[in-house]
Protein backbone atom coordinates (compact mmCIF):
# COMPACT_ATOMS: atom_id res chain seq x y z
CA UNK A 1 0.00 0.00 0.00
CA UNK A 2 2.68 2.44 1.14
CA UNK A 3 4.99 1.10 -1.53
CA UNK A 4 2.33 1.65 -4.17
CA UNK A 5 1.84 5.25 -3.15
CA UNK A 6 5.57 5.92 -3.47
CA UNK A 7 5.49 4.40 -6.95
CA UNK A 8 2.57 6.60 -7.93
CA UNK A 9 4.28 9.73 -6.66
CA UNK A 10 7.49 8.83 -8.47
CA UNK A 11 5.56 8.20 -11.69
CA UNK A 12 3.87 11.59 -11.43
CA UNK A 13 7.15 13.32 -10.61
CA UNK A 14 8.64 11.65 -13.66
CA UNK A 15 5.77 12.96 -15.77
CA UNK A 16 6.31 16.52 -14.52
CA UNK A 17 9.93 16.18 -15.52
CA UNK A 18 9.32 14.90 -19.05
CA UNK A 19 6.13 16.87 -19.82
CA UNK A 20 7.91 19.87 -21.41
CA UNK A 21 9.52 17.52 -23.93
CA UNK A 22 6.29 15.57 -24.52
CA UNK A 23 4.41 18.82 -24.97
CA UNK A 24 6.78 19.95 -27.72
CA UNK A 25 6.32 16.57 -29.38
CA UNK A 26 2.56 16.76 -29.04
CA UNK A 27 2.46 20.15 -30.76
CA UNK A 28 4.47 18.73 -33.66
CA UNK A 29 2.13 15.71 -33.83
CA UNK A 30 -0.92 17.96 -33.96
CA UNK A 31 0.68 20.14 -36.64
CA UNK A 32 1.46 17.04 -38.68
CA UNK A 33 -2.11 15.77 -38.25
CA UNK A 34 -3.75 19.06 -39.14
CA UNK A 35 -1.52 19.56 -42.18
CA UNK A 36 -2.04 16.02 -43.38
CA UNK A 37 -5.82 16.10 -42.86
CA UNK A 38 -6.19 19.38 -44.74
CA UNK A 39 -3.97 18.13 -47.56
CA UNK A 40 -5.83 14.82 -47.57
CA UNK A 41 -9.14 16.65 -47.82
CA UNK A 42 -7.88 18.95 -50.57
CA UNK A 43 -6.72 15.98 -52.68
CA UNK A 44 -9.32 13.46 -51.50
CA UNK A 45 -12.48 15.36 -52.36
CA UNK A 46 -11.52 16.08 -56.01
CA UNK A 47 -10.39 12.45 -56.33
CA UNK A 48 -13.76 11.26 -55.05
CA UNK A 49 -15.58 13.54 -57.50
CA UNK A 50 -13.33 12.41 -60.37
CA UNK A 51 -13.91 8.76 -59.54
CA UNK A 52 -17.67 9.23 -59.12
CA UNK A 53 -18.55 11.69 -61.88
CA UNK A 54 -15.46 11.68 -64.08
CA UNK A 55 -15.32 9.93 -67.42
CA UNK A 56 -12.65 8.04 -69.29
CA UNK A 57 -9.06 8.86 -68.43
CA UNK A 58 -9.88 11.15 -65.52
CA UNK A 59 -11.84 8.44 -63.78
CA UNK A 60 -9.17 5.82 -64.49
CA UNK A 61 -6.43 8.06 -63.10
CA UNK A 62 -8.39 8.83 -59.94
CA UNK A 63 -9.16 5.16 -59.41
CA UNK A 64 -5.53 4.18 -59.97
CA UNK A 65 -4.30 6.86 -57.56
CA UNK A 66 -6.68 5.75 -54.82
CA UNK A 67 -5.94 2.06 -55.24
CA UNK A 68 -2.16 2.49 -55.40
CA UNK A 69 -2.05 4.65 -52.29
CA UNK A 70 -4.39 2.39 -50.36
CA UNK A 71 -2.53 -0.69 -51.53
CA UNK A 72 0.95 0.30 -50.32
CA UNK A 73 2.23 0.72 -46.74
CA UNK A 74 2.48 4.25 -45.42
CA UNK A 75 6.13 3.76 -44.47
CA UNK A 76 6.96 2.98 -48.10
CA UNK A 77 5.23 6.19 -49.17
CA UNK A 78 7.04 8.17 -46.49
CA UNK A 79 10.46 6.80 -47.46
CA UNK A 80 9.85 7.34 -51.17
CA UNK A 81 9.01 10.98 -50.52
CA UNK A 82 11.82 11.62 -48.07
CA UNK A 83 14.61 9.43 -49.46
CA UNK A 84 13.43 8.88 -53.02
CA UNK A 85 12.39 12.33 -54.24
CA UNK A 86 15.90 13.84 -53.79
CA UNK A 87 16.97 11.58 -56.67
CA UNK A 88 14.63 13.62 -58.84
CA UNK A 89 16.00 16.88 -57.47
CA UNK A 90 13.15 17.41 -55.01
CA UNK A 91 14.59 17.82 -51.56
CA UNK A 92 12.06 18.24 -48.77
CA UNK A 93 12.63 19.03 -45.11
CA UNK A 94 11.51 16.40 -42.65
CA UNK A 95 8.34 18.18 -41.66
CA UNK A 96 7.00 18.97 -45.17
CA UNK A 97 7.98 15.48 -46.28
CA UNK A 98 6.03 13.94 -43.41
CA UNK A 99 2.97 16.14 -44.02
CA UNK A 100 3.08 15.32 -47.73
CA UNK A 101 3.36 11.57 -47.11
CA UNK A 102 0.66 11.48 -44.44
CA UNK A 103 -1.57 13.80 -46.49
CA UNK A 104 -1.29 11.73 -49.65
CA UNK A 105 -1.96 8.57 -47.69
CA UNK A 106 -4.97 10.12 -46.02
CA UNK A 107 -6.31 11.53 -49.29
CA UNK A 108 -6.92 8.05 -50.69
CA UNK A 109 -8.91 7.00 -47.64
CA UNK A 110 -10.78 10.28 -47.46
CA UNK A 111 -11.59 9.97 -51.17
CA UNK A 112 -13.23 6.62 -50.53
CA UNK A 113 -15.21 7.97 -47.59
CA UNK A 114 -16.46 10.83 -49.75
CA UNK A 115 -17.25 8.55 -52.65
CA UNK A 116 -19.23 6.23 -50.43
CA UNK A 117 -21.20 9.14 -49.03
CA UNK A 118 -21.90 10.58 -52.48
CA UNK A 119 -23.10 7.21 -53.77
CA UNK A 120 -25.38 6.76 -50.77
CA UNK A 121 -27.42 9.82 -51.70
CA UNK A 122 -30.67 9.00 -53.42
CA UNK A 123 -30.65 9.47 -57.18
CA UNK A 124 -33.87 11.46 -56.91
CA UNK A 125 -32.01 14.33 -55.24
CA UNK A 126 -29.97 14.89 -58.38
CA UNK A 127 -33.00 14.42 -60.65
CA UNK A 128 -34.99 17.04 -58.74
CA UNK A 129 -32.09 19.49 -58.91
CA UNK A 130 -31.71 18.97 -62.65
CA UNK A 131 -35.45 19.29 -63.16
CA UNK A 132 -35.23 22.74 -61.55
CA UNK A 133 -32.63 23.67 -64.15
CA UNK A 134 -29.47 23.20 -62.14
CA UNK A 135 -26.41 22.21 -64.11
CA UNK A 136 -24.42 19.14 -63.11
CA UNK A 137 -21.88 21.20 -61.16
CA UNK A 138 -24.59 23.28 -59.46
CA UNK A 139 -26.27 20.04 -58.44
CA UNK A 140 -23.04 18.65 -56.99
CA UNK A 141 -22.16 21.85 -55.12
CA UNK A 142 -25.62 22.79 -53.83
CA UNK A 143 -27.36 19.46 -53.34
CA UNK A 144 -25.02 16.46 -53.32
CA UNK A 145 -21.99 17.72 -51.39
CA UNK A 146 -23.83 19.41 -48.49
CA UNK A 147 -25.54 16.09 -47.84
CA UNK A 148 -22.51 13.90 -48.53
CA UNK A 149 -20.28 15.91 -46.20
CA UNK A 150 -22.78 15.46 -43.38
CA UNK A 151 -23.01 11.75 -44.00
CA UNK A 152 -19.23 11.45 -44.15
CA UNK A 153 -18.58 13.15 -40.82
CA UNK A 154 -18.70 10.06 -38.57
CA UNK A 155 -16.27 7.97 -40.67
CA UNK A 156 -14.20 11.08 -41.27
CA UNK A 157 -13.80 11.63 -37.54
CA UNK A 158 -12.29 8.14 -37.39
CA UNK A 159 -9.75 9.32 -39.91
CA UNK A 160 -8.85 12.21 -37.59
CA UNK A 161 -8.22 9.79 -34.74
CA UNK A 162 -6.17 7.45 -36.96
CA UNK A 163 -4.19 10.36 -38.30
CA UNK A 164 -3.07 11.63 -34.89
CA UNK A 165 -1.78 8.13 -34.15
CA UNK A 166 -0.32 7.58 -37.63
CA UNK A 167 1.84 10.68 -37.26
CA UNK A 168 4.05 8.52 -35.04
CA UNK A 169 5.54 6.92 -38.16
CA UNK A 170 7.16 10.31 -38.84
CA UNK A 171 9.65 9.51 -36.13
CA UNK A 172 11.23 7.13 -38.67
CA UNK A 173 12.52 10.18 -40.55
CA UNK A 174 13.37 11.91 -37.28
CA UNK A 175 10.51 14.39 -37.15
CA UNK A 176 10.45 15.40 -33.47
CA UNK A 177 6.82 14.44 -32.82
CA UNK A 178 5.41 12.85 -29.70
CA UNK A 179 6.70 9.33 -30.33
CA UNK A 180 10.15 10.56 -31.35
CA UNK A 181 10.39 12.63 -28.18
CA UNK A 182 9.40 9.56 -26.21
CA UNK A 183 12.17 7.55 -27.87
CA UNK A 184 14.64 10.32 -27.04
CA UNK A 185 13.50 10.46 -23.42
CA UNK A 186 13.95 6.71 -23.09
CA UNK A 187 17.61 6.93 -24.07
CA UNK A 188 18.09 9.87 -21.71
CA UNK A 189 16.27 8.49 -18.67
CA UNK A 190 16.55 4.71 -19.17
CA UNK A 191 12.91 4.44 -18.15
CA UNK A 192 11.18 2.92 -21.19
CA UNK A 193 8.04 1.63 -19.46
CA UNK A 194 7.31 4.85 -17.59
CA UNK A 195 8.01 6.98 -20.64
CA UNK A 196 5.86 4.91 -22.98
CA UNK A 197 3.13 4.85 -20.34
CA UNK A 198 2.96 8.64 -20.33
CA UNK A 199 3.23 8.87 -24.10
CA UNK A 200 0.21 6.56 -24.30
CA UNK A 201 -1.69 8.60 -21.73
CA UNK A 202 -1.07 11.81 -23.66
CA UNK A 203 -2.36 10.17 -26.86
CA UNK A 204 -5.49 8.92 -25.13
CA UNK A 205 -6.31 12.26 -23.52
CA UNK A 206 -5.73 14.25 -26.69
CA UNK A 207 -7.75 11.83 -28.80
CA UNK A 208 -10.64 11.91 -26.33
CA UNK A 209 -10.68 15.68 -26.53
CA UNK A 210 -10.62 15.54 -30.34
CA UNK A 211 -13.44 12.99 -30.38
CA UNK A 212 -15.47 15.28 -28.15
CA UNK A 213 -14.85 18.27 -30.43
CA UNK A 214 -15.90 16.26 -33.49
CA UNK A 215 -19.02 15.16 -31.63
CA UNK A 216 -19.99 18.76 -30.85
CA UNK A 217 -19.35 19.62 -34.49
CA UNK A 218 -21.64 16.79 -35.62
CA UNK A 219 -24.39 17.96 -33.31
CA UNK A 220 -24.11 21.51 -34.66
CA UNK A 221 -24.43 20.26 -38.23
CA UNK A 222 -27.12 17.70 -37.44
CA UNK A 223 -30.29 17.92 -39.49
CA UNK A 224 -33.42 15.88 -38.88
CA UNK A 225 -33.38 12.84 -41.10
CA UNK A 226 -29.63 12.52 -41.40
CA UNK A 227 -28.31 9.48 -39.59
CA UNK A 228 -25.46 10.61 -37.41
CA UNK A 229 -23.20 8.14 -35.64
CA UNK A 230 -24.73 8.61 -32.21
CA UNK A 231 -28.18 7.83 -33.54
CA UNK A 232 -27.09 4.53 -35.04
Amino acid at each position, binding site marked *: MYQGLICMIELIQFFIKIWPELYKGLIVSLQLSAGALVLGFAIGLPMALARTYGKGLLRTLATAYIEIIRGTPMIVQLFIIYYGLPDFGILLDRMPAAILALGINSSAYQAEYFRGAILSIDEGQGLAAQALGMTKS*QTIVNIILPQALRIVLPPWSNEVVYMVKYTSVAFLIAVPELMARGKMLITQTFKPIETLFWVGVVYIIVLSIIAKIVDIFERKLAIPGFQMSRED
Partner: protein
Amino acid sequence: MSKPILRIDNLHKKFKDTEVLKGVSLTVDEGEVVVIIGPSGTGKSTLLRCINRLIEPDAGEIYLGDEKIEPGVSNLSKVRQRIGMVFQDFNLFNHLTALQNVAIGPIKVKKMDKKAALKLAMQELERVGLADKANSYPAELSGGQKQRVAIARALAMDPEIMLFDEPTSALDPELIGEVLEVMKKLADAGMTMLVVSHEMGFAREAADRIVFLEDGVIVEMGPPEKIFNNPEKERTREFISKIARLHGKAQDVSGADLHD
Protein backbone atom coordinates in the same frame (compact mmCIF):
# COMPACT_ATOMS: atom_id res chain seq x y z
CA MET B 1 -56.66 29.20 -75.02
CA SER B 2 -55.54 27.11 -77.93
CA LYS B 3 -51.91 28.10 -78.12
CA PRO B 4 -49.85 24.91 -77.81
CA ILE B 5 -47.36 25.01 -74.94
CA LEU B 6 -45.98 21.54 -75.46
CA ARG B 7 -45.84 19.48 -78.60
CA ILE B 8 -44.50 15.94 -78.62
CA ASP B 9 -44.01 14.38 -82.01
CA ASN B 10 -43.48 10.67 -82.62
CA LEU B 11 -41.39 10.01 -79.51
CA HIS B 12 -39.46 6.73 -79.28
CA LYS B 13 -37.47 5.32 -76.39
CA LYS B 14 -35.84 1.95 -75.89
CA PHE B 15 -34.23 0.58 -72.73
CA LYS B 16 -31.90 -2.23 -73.80
CA ASP B 17 -34.25 -4.44 -75.83
CA THR B 18 -37.51 -3.13 -74.44
CA GLU B 19 -39.21 -0.48 -76.47
CA VAL B 20 -40.98 1.67 -73.89
CA LEU B 21 -42.28 4.45 -76.13
CA LYS B 22 -43.29 3.47 -79.64
CA GLY B 23 -44.07 6.75 -81.29
CA VAL B 24 -46.07 8.96 -78.96
CA SER B 25 -47.46 12.24 -80.24
CA LEU B 26 -49.29 14.65 -77.97
CA THR B 27 -50.01 18.36 -77.82
CA VAL B 28 -50.84 20.26 -74.65
CA ASP B 29 -52.42 23.68 -75.06
CA GLU B 30 -52.01 26.63 -72.77
CA GLY B 31 -54.14 26.26 -69.63
CA GLU B 32 -55.04 22.70 -70.49
CA VAL B 33 -54.97 19.87 -67.95
CA VAL B 34 -54.10 16.53 -69.50
CA VAL B 35 -54.17 13.38 -67.39
CA ILE B 36 -52.28 10.31 -68.60
CA ILE B 37 -53.52 6.94 -67.41
CA GLY B 38 -52.35 3.46 -68.27
CA PRO B 39 -51.01 0.21 -66.78
CA SER B 40 -47.69 0.36 -64.98
CA GLY B 41 -44.65 -0.14 -67.16
CA THR B 42 -46.23 1.43 -70.22
CA GLY B 43 -43.89 4.39 -70.35
CA LYS B 44 -45.89 7.10 -68.58
CA SER B 45 -43.00 8.22 -66.38
CA THR B 46 -40.55 7.78 -69.24
CA LEU B 47 -42.70 10.05 -71.37
CA LEU B 48 -42.66 12.80 -68.73
CA ARG B 49 -38.92 12.49 -68.18
CA CYS B 50 -38.23 12.66 -71.89
CA ILE B 51 -39.99 16.02 -72.01
CA ASN B 52 -37.44 17.76 -69.77
CA ARG B 53 -34.68 15.43 -70.92
CA LEU B 54 -34.01 13.73 -67.64
CA ILE B 55 -34.16 10.80 -70.04
CA GLU B 56 -32.82 11.17 -73.57
CA PRO B 57 -35.33 9.92 -76.15
CA ASP B 58 -34.07 7.84 -79.08
CA ALA B 59 -36.16 9.56 -81.69
CA GLY B 60 -38.92 12.12 -82.02
CA GLU B 61 -39.26 15.83 -81.46
CA ILE B 62 -40.38 17.93 -78.55
CA TYR B 63 -41.33 21.60 -78.80
CA LEU B 64 -41.78 23.90 -75.84
CA GLY B 65 -43.75 26.84 -77.17
CA ASP B 66 -42.11 27.51 -80.53
CA GLU B 67 -38.73 26.28 -79.42
CA LYS B 68 -37.53 22.82 -80.35
CA ILE B 69 -35.77 21.08 -77.48
CA GLU B 70 -32.56 19.68 -78.85
CA PRO B 71 -29.74 18.42 -76.66
CA GLY B 72 -26.50 20.12 -77.56
CA VAL B 73 -28.40 22.89 -79.33
CA SER B 74 -30.83 24.24 -76.76
CA ASN B 75 -29.67 25.07 -73.26
CA LEU B 76 -31.18 22.26 -71.20
CA SER B 77 -30.98 24.28 -68.00
CA LYS B 78 -33.02 27.06 -69.62
CA VAL B 79 -35.58 24.57 -70.93
CA ARG B 80 -35.97 22.84 -67.58
CA GLN B 81 -36.55 26.15 -65.82
CA ARG B 82 -39.69 26.52 -67.92
CA ILE B 83 -40.98 23.05 -67.03
CA GLY B 84 -41.96 22.30 -63.45
CA MET B 85 -41.74 18.69 -62.34
CA VAL B 86 -43.26 16.90 -59.38
CA PHE B 87 -42.00 13.41 -58.61
CA GLN B 88 -43.75 10.39 -57.16
CA ASP B 89 -41.36 10.23 -54.20
CA PHE B 90 -41.16 14.00 -53.67
CA ASN B 91 -37.34 14.23 -53.84
CA LEU B 92 -37.22 17.22 -51.52
CA PHE B 93 -33.67 18.27 -50.75
CA ASN B 94 -33.11 16.61 -47.39
CA HIS B 95 -30.58 19.08 -46.03
CA LEU B 96 -32.79 22.13 -46.61
CA THR B 97 -35.87 23.42 -44.82
CA ALA B 98 -39.17 23.62 -46.66
CA LEU B 99 -38.56 27.32 -47.31
CA GLN B 100 -35.01 26.75 -48.55
CA ASN B 101 -36.22 23.91 -50.77
CA VAL B 102 -38.56 26.31 -52.51
CA ALA B 103 -36.08 29.20 -52.62
CA ILE B 104 -33.01 27.34 -53.89
CA GLY B 105 -34.18 27.14 -57.51
CA PRO B 106 -34.76 30.89 -57.89
CA ILE B 107 -31.53 31.66 -56.00
CA LYS B 108 -29.13 29.28 -57.73
CA VAL B 109 -30.72 28.85 -61.14
CA LYS B 110 -32.41 32.19 -61.75
CA LYS B 111 -29.78 34.10 -59.75
CA MET B 112 -32.55 35.89 -57.92
CA ASP B 113 -31.68 38.09 -54.95
CA LYS B 114 -31.75 35.92 -51.83
CA LYS B 115 -34.19 38.07 -49.92
CA ALA B 116 -36.60 38.30 -52.83
CA ALA B 117 -36.33 34.55 -53.37
CA LEU B 118 -37.15 33.78 -49.73
CA LYS B 119 -40.14 36.11 -49.94
CA LEU B 120 -41.30 34.40 -53.12
CA ALA B 121 -40.76 31.00 -51.50
CA MET B 122 -42.92 32.03 -48.56
CA GLN B 123 -45.69 33.07 -50.94
CA GLU B 124 -45.48 29.72 -52.72
CA LEU B 125 -45.65 27.87 -49.41
CA GLU B 126 -48.73 29.91 -48.51
CA ARG B 127 -50.22 28.93 -51.84
CA VAL B 128 -49.95 25.24 -50.89
CA GLY B 129 -51.05 25.98 -47.33
CA LEU B 130 -47.74 25.27 -45.62
CA ALA B 131 -46.46 28.67 -44.50
CA ASP B 132 -46.35 27.36 -40.93
CA LYS B 133 -43.96 24.57 -41.97
CA ALA B 134 -41.44 26.89 -43.59
CA ASN B 135 -38.67 26.00 -41.16
CA SER B 136 -39.33 22.27 -41.01
CA TYR B 137 -36.95 19.81 -42.63
CA PRO B 138 -38.33 17.18 -45.02
CA ALA B 139 -37.88 14.45 -42.39
CA GLU B 140 -40.27 16.38 -40.15
CA LEU B 141 -43.06 16.57 -42.75
CA SER B 142 -45.76 14.07 -43.65
CA GLY B 143 -45.83 12.64 -47.16
CA GLY B 144 -48.66 14.94 -48.18
CA GLN B 145 -46.85 17.98 -46.83
CA LYS B 146 -43.65 16.94 -48.60
CA GLN B 147 -45.47 16.69 -51.90
CA ARG B 148 -47.08 20.09 -51.40
CA VAL B 149 -43.64 21.61 -50.71
CA ALA B 150 -42.40 19.88 -53.87
CA ILE B 151 -45.23 21.51 -55.82
CA ALA B 152 -44.34 24.90 -54.30
CA ARG B 153 -40.70 24.31 -55.26
CA ALA B 154 -41.66 23.73 -58.88
CA LEU B 155 -44.04 26.71 -58.89
CA ALA B 156 -41.36 29.07 -57.56
CA MET B 157 -39.59 28.78 -60.92
CA ASP B 158 -42.70 30.20 -62.58
CA PRO B 159 -42.95 27.38 -65.13
CA GLU B 160 -45.04 27.42 -68.27
CA ILE B 161 -46.14 23.85 -67.73
CA MET B 162 -46.16 21.49 -64.75
CA LEU B 163 -45.45 17.78 -65.08
CA PHE B 164 -46.78 15.53 -62.31
CA ASP B 165 -45.37 12.00 -62.17
CA GLU B 166 -47.84 9.97 -60.09
CA PRO B 167 -47.85 12.63 -57.37
CA THR B 168 -50.08 10.70 -54.97
CA SER B 169 -48.92 7.11 -55.53
CA ALA B 170 -46.46 7.12 -52.62
CA LEU B 171 -48.97 8.63 -50.21
CA ASP B 172 -51.13 7.07 -47.54
CA PRO B 173 -54.78 7.25 -48.63
CA GLU B 174 -55.71 9.87 -46.05
CA LEU B 175 -52.97 12.22 -47.34
CA ILE B 176 -53.93 12.06 -51.00
CA GLY B 177 -56.78 14.56 -50.69
CA GLU B 178 -54.63 17.50 -49.59
CA VAL B 179 -52.29 17.08 -52.56
CA LEU B 180 -55.12 16.71 -55.06
CA GLU B 181 -56.76 19.79 -53.60
CA VAL B 182 -53.63 21.84 -54.29
CA MET B 183 -53.45 20.44 -57.81
CA LYS B 184 -57.10 21.20 -58.40
CA LYS B 185 -56.56 24.79 -57.29
CA LEU B 186 -53.63 25.08 -59.67
CA ALA B 187 -55.73 23.75 -62.52
CA ASP B 188 -58.50 26.21 -61.70
CA ALA B 189 -55.94 29.03 -61.70
CA GLY B 190 -55.16 28.18 -65.32
CA MET B 191 -51.89 26.31 -64.96
CA THR B 192 -51.00 24.07 -67.88
CA MET B 193 -50.59 20.58 -66.46
CA LEU B 194 -49.57 17.16 -67.70
CA VAL B 195 -50.41 14.65 -64.99
CA VAL B 196 -49.71 10.94 -64.72
CA SER B 197 -52.22 9.73 -62.19
CA HIS B 198 -54.89 7.15 -61.56
CA GLU B 199 -56.90 9.41 -59.28
CA MET B 200 -60.22 9.16 -61.11
CA GLY B 201 -61.85 11.85 -58.98
CA PHE B 202 -59.19 14.36 -59.90
CA ALA B 203 -59.20 13.30 -63.55
CA ARG B 204 -62.97 13.62 -63.78
CA GLU B 205 -63.05 17.05 -62.19
CA ALA B 206 -59.89 18.77 -63.31
CA ALA B 207 -58.87 17.17 -66.60
CA ASP B 208 -59.71 18.64 -69.97
CA ARG B 209 -58.41 15.53 -71.63
CA ILE B 210 -57.58 11.98 -70.65
CA VAL B 211 -54.86 10.08 -72.49
CA PHE B 212 -54.83 6.29 -72.23
CA LEU B 213 -51.28 5.05 -72.80
CA GLU B 214 -50.56 1.36 -73.14
CA ASP B 215 -47.48 -0.52 -74.35
CA GLY B 216 -45.82 2.69 -75.43
CA VAL B 217 -48.62 3.97 -77.65
CA ILE B 218 -51.59 6.22 -77.09
CA VAL B 219 -54.58 3.92 -77.36
CA GLU B 220 -57.22 6.58 -76.99
CA MET B 221 -57.67 10.12 -75.81
CA GLY B 222 -60.58 12.45 -75.24
CA PRO B 223 -62.55 14.40 -72.65
CA PRO B 224 -63.01 12.64 -69.28
CA GLU B 225 -66.76 11.97 -69.74
CA LYS B 226 -66.08 10.14 -72.97
CA ILE B 227 -63.07 8.14 -71.78
CA PHE B 228 -64.61 7.18 -68.46
CA ASN B 229 -68.20 6.60 -69.56
CA ASN B 230 -68.09 5.77 -73.19
CA PRO B 231 -64.62 4.80 -74.46
CA GLU B 232 -64.24 3.66 -78.05
CA LYS B 233 -61.67 0.97 -77.45
CA GLU B 234 -62.36 -2.21 -75.56
CA ARG B 235 -58.89 -2.04 -73.86
CA THR B 236 -59.71 1.40 -72.49
CA ARG B 237 -62.99 0.15 -71.08
CA GLU B 238 -61.28 -2.81 -69.37
CA PHE B 239 -58.60 -0.62 -67.85
CA ILE B 240 -61.05 2.02 -66.62
CA SER B 241 -63.19 -0.58 -64.91
CA LYS B 242 -60.08 -2.10 -63.35
CA ILE B 243 -58.84 1.15 -61.79
CA ALA B 244 -62.39 2.07 -60.81
CA ARG B 245 -62.50 -1.15 -58.77
CA LEU B 246 -59.02 -0.64 -57.30
CA HIS B 247 -59.27 3.08 -56.63
CA GLY B 248 -62.98 3.18 -55.98
CA LYS B 249 -62.58 3.82 -52.29
CA ALA B 250 -59.81 6.40 -52.60
CA GLN B 251 -61.74 8.12 -55.34
CA ASP B 252 -64.76 8.58 -53.12
CA VAL B 253 -62.66 10.05 -50.34
CA SER B 254 -60.69 12.42 -52.56
CA GLY B 255 -63.79 13.24 -54.57
CA ALA B 256 -65.56 14.30 -51.39
CA ASP B 257 -62.57 16.42 -50.42
CA LEU B 258 -62.58 18.19 -53.72
CA HIS B 259 -66.19 19.22 -53.40
CA ASP B 260 -65.58 21.07 -50.14
